[in-house]
């Protein structure tokens, strides 16, 4: 009897293993477990067995029954999976995917992220200072003469209202350089016996100038670097410029500095980057192979003095460039009208 049960089980399992579809499985199940199935019939014989052996065989019979049922279920699942997989094998993988809807960060945000990461790697720390500023921070302390054109009503936005007794009129800062004065003044405030902590500042902010045309928007963004320590040199400034140009624009691009004039740096430079479209050969975009990135220079001793730093002990360099400009120069992104960046047309914003 015991052998019979085990044989039945083995027999059933091998049939189940070879079954090819669900219908066949149902037949196998019926053949063993149905009302006149082989196992059912074997079980019917149980009452005739000796009582001592009966209990043991009963347990075995039950086990056989459960094993067969479980194997049938398992095989059914396998078959279903097989059908599914054979369907999957036939799909056209070139049909479109079901994309989750993802939005877009503004071009300026993307550029700011990249610029920040690049400068952070060489120890610059990002800061933010007021956009609405006093004349002192935006001009006076930066060594601008009283009658400098940038200080008149045609170039800078002024706020309607009374001037500060010490800091002069209130205005919208036309450049991130006002952050230089804030940063250095803060360093002096927290200095210990005339020794300031060295500065490596990255100030990225909105700036405002009173102009609007295809290449100017009244609001734009600048990023400003300032390094102050002992014995910094033009060689160091060039080091940072080259590093940024290669990191941001690509290894193939090179930078150069040209003599220029700014009130708050001496010597002052204009920084050019080789054109990415023609690789510096000269083309319709760049004319002579170079694109102008912006200004830089060694911090003017008067500026250091104005913030309370001793120019005989400390010096440094600074640079301030347009985020939008850097962006447009990067991949030859030829946006024909800069104002488009702030027009908020989704057709434009969703391209990036």
């Amino acid at each position: 009897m015991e052998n019979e049960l085990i044989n039945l089980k083995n027999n059933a399992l091998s049939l189940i293993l070879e079954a090819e579809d669900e219908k066949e499985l149902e037949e196998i199940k019926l053949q063993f477990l149905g009302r006149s199935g082989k196992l059912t019939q074997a079980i019917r014989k149980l009452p005739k067995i000796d009582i001592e052996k009966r209990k043991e065989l009963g347990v075995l019979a039950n086990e056989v029954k459960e094993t067969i049922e479980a194997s049938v279920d398992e095989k059914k699942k396998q078959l279903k999976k097989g059908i599914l997989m054979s369907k999957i094998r036939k799909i056209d993988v070139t049909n479109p995917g079901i994309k989750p809807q993802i939005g877009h960060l503004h071009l300026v945000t993307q550029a700011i992220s990249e610029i920040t990461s690049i400068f952070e790697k060489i120890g610059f720390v990002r800061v933010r200072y007021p956009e609405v500023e006093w004349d002192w921070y935006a001009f006076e302390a930066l060594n601008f003469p009283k009658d400098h054109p940038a200080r008149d009503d045609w170039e800078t936005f002024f706020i309607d209202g009374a001037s500060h007794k010490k800091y002069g009129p209130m205005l919208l800062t036309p450049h991130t350089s006002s952050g230089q004065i804030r940063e250095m003044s803060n360093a002096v405030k927290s200095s210990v016996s005339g020794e300031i902590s060295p500065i490596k500042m990255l100030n990225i902010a909105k700036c405002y100038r009173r102009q609007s045309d295809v290449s100017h928007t009244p609001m734009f963004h600048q990023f400003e670097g300032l390094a102050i320590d002992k014995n910094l040199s033009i060689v160091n400034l060039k080091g940072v410029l080259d590093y940024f140009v290669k990191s941001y624009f690509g290894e193939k691009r090179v930078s150069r500095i040209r003599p220029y004039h700014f009130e708050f740096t001496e010597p002052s430079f204009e920084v050019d980057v080789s054109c990415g479209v023609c690789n510096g050969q000269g083309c319709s975009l760049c004319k002579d192979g170079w694109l102008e990135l912006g200004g830089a220079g060694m911090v003017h001793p008067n500026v250091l003095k104005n913030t309370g730093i001793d120019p005989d002990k400390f010096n440094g360099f600074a640079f301030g460039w347009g985020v939008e400009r850097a962006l447009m120069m990067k991949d030859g992104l030829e946006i024909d009208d800069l104002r488009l960046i702030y027009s908020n047309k989704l057709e434009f914003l969703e391209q990036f």
Partner: protein
Amino acid sequence: MAQVLEVKIGYSPEKIRRRLEESGIRSLNSVVDVTNYVMREVGHPSHVFDFDLLSTRKMDIRQSRPGETLTTLDGKKYRLTGGDIVAVDDNGEIIDLLGVMGTANSVVQENTKRIIFFLDNNNPKFIRRSSMSLGIRTEAAIINEKGIDPELMKDAFKRGIKLFEEIAEGKVISDSIDIYPNKSKKGHVTVSEDKISSVIGIDINSEKSADILRKLGFEVKIKNGKLDTKVPTLRPDVTTEEDIIEEVARIFGYHKLPSIIPSFLTNKTGTFADRFYFEKKSKNFFKYLGFTEIYNYSLVSEDLFDGPVDRAIKLKNPLSEDMMYLRNSLVPSLLTSVDENKGHDEIKIFEMSGVYEKRQGDLPKEILMLAGVVKRHDVSFFEVKGIIEALTLDLGIKKINFNKRSKSPGSDIYIDGKFLGYIEVLDGETINFELNFEEILNYANNKKTYKKLAKYPPIFEDITFVLDTSVLTEDVINEILNKSFLIKNVTLKDRFSNSRTFHITYQAEDRSLSSKDVFEIHKKIVDSIGEKFAAKVK
């Protein structure tokens, strides 16, 4: 300086015409061409009057008075506001707007026979003001407003006379006048060899520096490692050691200098999860939820200012009425952006930017805000609320509260009892929100807390109550949570007309709960909710 000449007007020689055109100046006639050619060659602008058009023999140079008028040589009439530098004849008529543009009443024409060749050098501030306020941007004005070395005038004058003689049959018929009240002086700067090398970043010896400076017209003496220099008058910009260093460096060649990144670091610490980190994280959060980022101008019109404009920070010199005030809310501009994209079935946009709050006698408070708009035909308040809840949770903020908003349909949002922002339901398809990001930054953190994984399984139960619509779900949840420390969580699972189903999680840390444990708590809940909110179990 000035002198009267007899001339014969004609065309300039080919060489002069071509050179002028190639430098961006149109060739007109031999006399006018001389003034422009001298400006290009020497760098000092000059002017010519038709001597016979002047009705008197006296020229007074003074500041203009408000209301005086003139007609420039291109025929345009201007009314002056005062403070322009003008030349006036004996009758009080303006015959030149100095440094900017000549006037029609004294302009040289084809039949001009006698001219005054006239060079003036004025305070650049006045030239700038006249040129900008009248909108006359001539090349002379652009050069004059930057300031020119008066010492250049002699060369320009001599060269001009010579050119008139050469190409316009010029003949001097008067003495020359030279009025020179404020003479340029030669500056004096001393700088050490060490300083030069230190600022440039490579060693450059005194001999090399002196050689460069002498070629630029400086007089240089070397004494004990120091350069003693006399600055040519042409260079009034050179007044400090740094100016001298610039001259040496630029002639030495910037391209010959190596590039070395300075290796020092600042002493600033703890800057990883700073405000910029959380700003970026939040922007990315919205991006990956399908929002597109907008940058609007901070300057808005009266319409886009939220509230009465007497509270606004106003520009003194706006470009236009559309950009007159600094905004105090991002939402009005964002709604304009929605209008500008009408063709879209669904719009999800956001902006993170500063707003400006007026303060008496101080700079305005600049507050970073985070705002957004969702527009879709079936948008719901809870969709937007869910986004804000998920955002704050992602920034490590455990709890924010929502209260019904009295101003408009929607909700005010609080954090730790402080106002954080609001959600506003504008109509059936547009919902906006605005959050004070500075407040968020006060609470945002990256803190990780670990809760021991449960050893014993939880038991879940759903209880449905029939509740009046005035009963707040939050109050019911808090009441349920209060009933036993074995209740680990309560959420609203479903709502249908007047019934609400709460999903309750029971769990103990030290044993498996029995159905008897749960039944006792269940009874407490039902009794308490029934009593407090007049609710029935469904």
